[in-house]
């Protein structure tokens, strides 16, 4: 087993816990030697070597001019202020070598070190990374960082008191620090997979409270008191006597005097203040009451004789408080090291959410690499699901990504330049992170693109520019111009057909005198209702709109008449169906189907049945008259509106069209079903847009091969554009550069329609151009259906 050590190194009281016997080469399970690192520790420079640990504390280096050349104070640096400057983001130039020296002094021969770090918001990934960089290197031990409260709790679990621990227990951990107390709440969880092993669960950073009890404040006060007791000024104590530190931290009995060397090399006896230090009654801390905890663990470098003083400060705690033995965190770290070596989790941590902007269905959205509130075991690396739907565009040397960390921090990442690929290359983006071990590793690789497969791009978090824009602003800036969505066929009703045009009786009067048994009335009605007279403004409109709506100015009588006639005709048809007698003519069907969605549902149902019969070649009463197939199929196109019917009819019609038969009726039905009903876009994804596109593609191919123009081409084009209505749901669907189906339509329309030319075919060629534009997503017009309607037979 490897030689493992836990290390607690805050500069106030350092400890290492060694998991092996010194005279034994390898680690022995269960063995733990506590290595005292001394209190108020320093780092000194001797002959260009940096030395830490007790050797440095005791060494004469930097202890004032009285010690000769080696007494130069710049050669001696206290570790606690070095930590403080590191945490405020301004590390001393010697920070790396100082930290290494302090670590090495206590962990000689160790191969694995678990290093305690303060749990406060400043300890973000960049500082974790800085610590790891400082502590690791070639021929150096492996270092794992661990939050100090977690180490503290693990250390407590090892002690005799740890038997109080139970699943779900909430523990408040207080760590005495330079500027107050670091507080963190941890919850104990039992892992069923590890036989109920208790592990602390951490959720976010701890906080610093009670600044008036900070160790630096206490030490300054003790130094003042010492100077005062010896009638000296602080300036004459250049060599920083150890007496104040002894008073605060030294285990009993406290030293009462120190032999101190003055600047002139004379020895002076310094006496401790008679009454000692920490004499004032501390101001009680009240910041803690709002969050409940089952137990409070406190770790402090102060000597045991000051614990009563400390308890007085925390008198108002809502839970029992336990002051841990010195070195508890170090021994907890060793436990963590052993758990890591065994492969069991030493704690559970919550990872910061990390999301990447990706295009989902053409729309930029933040996709989670690490979901919010992800709780992961601390000993294992979290590996995200790979994002595979992104593409590195051809001729692109570098790409831009937007990453969101936490809830608000957004960074823009421009990758280093790579040799641009010649085609679009799909990417594999994956994130790996070990909790509290510095930055997550985000890699962009590729399965097929050789260059990226061999040299995946790794994200360097430190170089990322932080975005000032908000999340929404970034998404908006990334959102391209969406392709045009065709408006469905919607023709409003007009009064002209009701009122009548010169030479033809209006629908109102026809309905008023309508008698179903009178010869000619029905035929007349059927003719009139489909009239499409031109209004004064040039537009044409039928009596009833494509949604079955009536003109707003229509009189109540006319509406009642219409209602009556619909009822009569529906009864008539029902009767025919019920007796199974074929219709004498198509007039009743024509009349009802030209009323579009005003056609009664029962009739619609029968029409759908008739269409199915027509498609399968079976008999139906509606199919008895001459030319009834056309009437039924085109009529169905006008009246069907239920999604269930659409789902049934569209694929059937398409399949029917696949065989070599006259295309007109089927195409008419299909075009109408795809272009008119409100519900069509919603059922298209269910039907499989690519399958529909494939079928239509074959039909279009056949049309161009057979050099067909006119209405069949028109219907085909309307059907194709009808498919584009899916963009109401998926804005970027059926765009030629993403969808092969769309691309294939474009190819056929561009390359194989050269047989349509000449001034007469101008509307056709122009319409085709519009359709191509729509398919390419580069323009087109929303009212494309009305354009296509103008194609003449």
């Amino acid at each position: 087993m490897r030689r493992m050590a836990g290390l607690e190194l805050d500069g106030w009281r350092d400890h290492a816990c060694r998991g092996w016997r010194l005279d034994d080469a390898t680690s022995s399970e269960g063995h733990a030697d506590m290595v005292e690192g001394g209190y108020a520790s320093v780092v000194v420079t001797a002959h260009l070597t940096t030395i830490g640990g007790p050797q440095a504390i005791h060494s004469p280096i930097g202890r004032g001019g009285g010690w000769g050349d080696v007494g130069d104070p710049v050669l001696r640096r206290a570790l606690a202020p070095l930590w403080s400057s590191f945490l405020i983001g301004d590390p001393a130039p010697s920070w790396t070598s100082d930290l290494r020296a302090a670590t090495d002094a206590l962990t000689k021969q160790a191969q694995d070190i678990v290093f305690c770090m303060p749990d406060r918001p400043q300890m973000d990934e960049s500082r974790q990374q800085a610590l790891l960089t400082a502590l690791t290197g070639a021929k150096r031990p492996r270092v794992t960082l661990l939050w100090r409260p977690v180490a503290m709790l693990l250390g407590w679990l090892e002690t005799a008191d740890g038997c109080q621990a139970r699943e779900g227990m909430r523990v408040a951990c207080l760590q005495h620090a330079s500027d107050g107390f670091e507080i963190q709440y941890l919850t104990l969880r039992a892992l069923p997979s590890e036989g109920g092993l208790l592990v602390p669960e951490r959720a976010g950073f701890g906080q610093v409270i009670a600044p008036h009890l900070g160790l630096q404040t206490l030490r300054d006060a003790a130094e003042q008191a010492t100077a005062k007791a010896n009638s000296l000024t602080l300036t004459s104590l250049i060599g920083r006597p150890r007496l104040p530190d002894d008073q605060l931290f030294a285990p009993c009995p406290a030293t009462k005097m120190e032999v101190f060397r003055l600047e002139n090399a004379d020895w002076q006896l310094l006496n401790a203040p008679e009454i000692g230090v920490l004499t004032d009654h501390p101001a009680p801390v009240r910041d803690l009451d709002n969050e409940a905890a089952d137990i409070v663990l406190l770790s402090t470098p102060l000597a045991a004789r000051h614990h009563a003083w400390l308890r007085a400060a925390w008198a108002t705690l809502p839970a029992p408080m336990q002051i841990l033995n010195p070195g508890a965190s170090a021994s907890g770290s060793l436990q963590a090291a052993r758990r890591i070596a065994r492969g069991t989790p030493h704690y559970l941590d919550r990872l910061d959410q990390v999301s990447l902007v990706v295009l989902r269905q053409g729309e930029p959205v933040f996709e989670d690499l690490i979901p919010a509130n992800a709780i992961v075991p601390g000993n294992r690396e979290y590996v995200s699901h790979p994002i595979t739907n992104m593409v590195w565009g051809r001729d692109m040397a570098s790409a831009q990504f937007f990453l969101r960390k936490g809830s608000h921090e957004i960074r823009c990442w421009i990758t280093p330049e790579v040799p641009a690929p010649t085609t679009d290359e799909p990417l594999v983006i994956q994130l790996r992170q070990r909790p509290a071990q510095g930055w997550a590793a985000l890699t962009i690789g590729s399965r097929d693109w050789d260059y990226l497969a061999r040299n995946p791009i790794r994200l360097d978090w430190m170089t990322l520019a932080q975005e000032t824009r908000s999340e929404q602003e970034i998404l908006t800036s990334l959102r391209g111009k969406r392709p045009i969505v065709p408006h469905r066929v919607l023709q409003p009703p007009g009064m002209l057909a009701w009122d009548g045009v010169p030479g033809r009786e209006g629908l109102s009067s026809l309905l008023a005198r309508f008698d179903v048994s009178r010869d000619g009335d029905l035929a007349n009605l059927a003719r009139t209702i489909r009239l499409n007279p031109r209004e004064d403004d040039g537009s044409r409109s039928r009596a009833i709109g494509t949604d079955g709506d009536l003109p707003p100015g229509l009189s109540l009588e006319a509406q009642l008449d219409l209602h009556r006639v619909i009822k009569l005709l529906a009864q008539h048809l029902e009767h025919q169906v019920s007796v199974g007698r074929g219709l004498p003519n198509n007039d009743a069907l024509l009349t009802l189907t030209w009323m579009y969605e005003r056609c009664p549902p029962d009739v619609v149902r029968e029409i759908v049945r008739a269409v199915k019969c027509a498609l399968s070649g079976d008999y139906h009463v509606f199919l008895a008259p001459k030319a009834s197939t056309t009437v039924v199929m085109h009529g169905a196109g006008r009246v069907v509106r239920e999604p269930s019917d659409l789902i049934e009819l569209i694929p059937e019609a398409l399949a029917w069209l696949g065989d070599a038969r006259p295309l007109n009726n089927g195409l008419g039905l299909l075009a109408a079903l795809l272009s008119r009903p409100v519900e069509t876009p919603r059922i298209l994804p269910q039907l499989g847009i690519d399958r529909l596109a494939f079928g239509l593609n074959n039909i279009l191919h056949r049309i161009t091969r057979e050099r067909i123009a006119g209405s069949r081409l028109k219907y085909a084009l309307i059907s194709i554009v009808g498919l584009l209505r899916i963009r109401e749901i998926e804005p970027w669907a059926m765009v030629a550069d993403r969808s092969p189906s769309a691309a294939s339509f474009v190819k056929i329309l561009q390359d194989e329609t050269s047989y349509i030319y000449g001034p007469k075919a101008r509307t056709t060629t122009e319409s085709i151009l519009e359709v191509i534009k729509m398919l390419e997503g580069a323009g087109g017009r929303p009212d494309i259906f009305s354009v296509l309607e103008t194609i003449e037979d």
Partner: protein
Amino acid sequence: MARPGSEPGLGMFLQHWERPWAWLDPTGTRYVEASSLESGLSVGTAGWLCVNDIKALRVDGRGYGNKGEADFKVTSDRHVISLPLPLRHGSPQPISSGNRGLLLDWHKLPERPADGIVPDDDAQGRAKALLDRVKSVWARIREVEEAAATPATMWPRLEAIWLSGGQADPEMDLIVRQARELPPVLEHLDKAPRRILRRTSRMLPLARVQEIDRKAMLWLARQPGETIAERAGDRQRIQAIAREENFNTLENRVLLSYARLAKEIAHDYAQRHRRSGSTRVHQVRAYDERCRRLERDLVALGVQTASTDVTPNFVLQNNWHYHQVWTAWHELLRRHRALDELWRWQARSWEELSALATIVAAQSIPGAQPIALSSIVFRGEQDRGCWIDHVNPVAVFFLERQQLVLEISYRQFIRPSKLAQFGAAIWLRVGRPNQRDGLTRWAIWPLWDPDGGLERGEADEVGRILPQGRGENLRGGITVRPTKREEAAEVVTSEKVACLTLGTEGQPLADGIANLRRVIIRQVLGEPD
């Protein structure tokens, strides 16, 4: 008073010193000045050279080679450096500086014996004892590194390790570590050493021919006969490729060389500690046996030894097992070379050991509280017999009972000064807190000697030079010599001088330190019993 080197008119200057205080020696017996003719000199101890220009110094026709640094300087142009012992004595060793020269005859001192030597005669016994002392000194100094693993209590721990006598384990050595870590590797390699199949061209019976090459085909074509059987002749053999196993590869040669070296060193270690019942010795003894067996097996396979300067091949670098052996072999070779160096510089190692012993003695004075203890950095490689980097003062103790401050410095006076002229490697300085006066100094001279034991008249000799340091508050001097072979530590004291001997292990070491402590308490601190 006649001072050495006072001859005027000559540019170059070269003296051989028998004692470090030779500069102040009023009798003129402790140095020999070189003349323009190479004068022969038979030396009985390592000694020092005093020169005016180190760069001009030639030992055996080569530069002295220590970056021009002096051990100390007595005046600005008189550099004193210690002289290494030669490993072998051939003809007298020429030493020259410019036109001055000396021929040093080392025959009074033993040569460096082989590591595992079993002495035949007295001379070899003397050499073996000296080598054992060198190893023992080295072991004591290395124990500093072990003690430094618990830095807070380093000096008490060092004392505990040193003074545990025969009770505790014998010293941790490289061979102990290897004896713990390597047996599985050797076991594996002994069972299945790597081999190569070598293709050779041979006459083979027809039935055993598996492969023939162009050369064999040509041979076959030239043979008379129609069929192959005819061509094979009456012995029915043809030329063909035979594949032979061969174990004499570089990696196996290295393995054999390692086994030989490890066996010797392990045997030597086990012999030195044959009376100890420690598991370490058991392990090393077992390892000795393991290496012996491996050596036998490899020799039986026809493996030869490798020379120490071979370049590692792919197997040695990348096969995990062989790489372990390669690394271990080089560690042992380095250790072997380190022993050579230690032999050469044993006088300086003795100074280092004495300094450590002084600190151990001082810290064990009742009521001693450390005020300052220099950090001790154990060097990766020795520097002329020294392993320890420190700053001065190396240790300062407050002696509560005596209300005194005791400072110990080691190799402090390097720059020319009055105190540097005394040439003492260790200095004690005693001060009293809150008082300006009352500073006193004591010099400690560690004096290496091949045989050890006290030297008659040394106390008087030291007593005679002490008055020259009166202006510097020099109160007294102590000499520290090695104990005689298998004899107890001795001490003689006069009012201001103490001469004592110090063992390198076990009881003589403990007694030597105790004597030193008593001398410090009684004479240096002036406390009556």
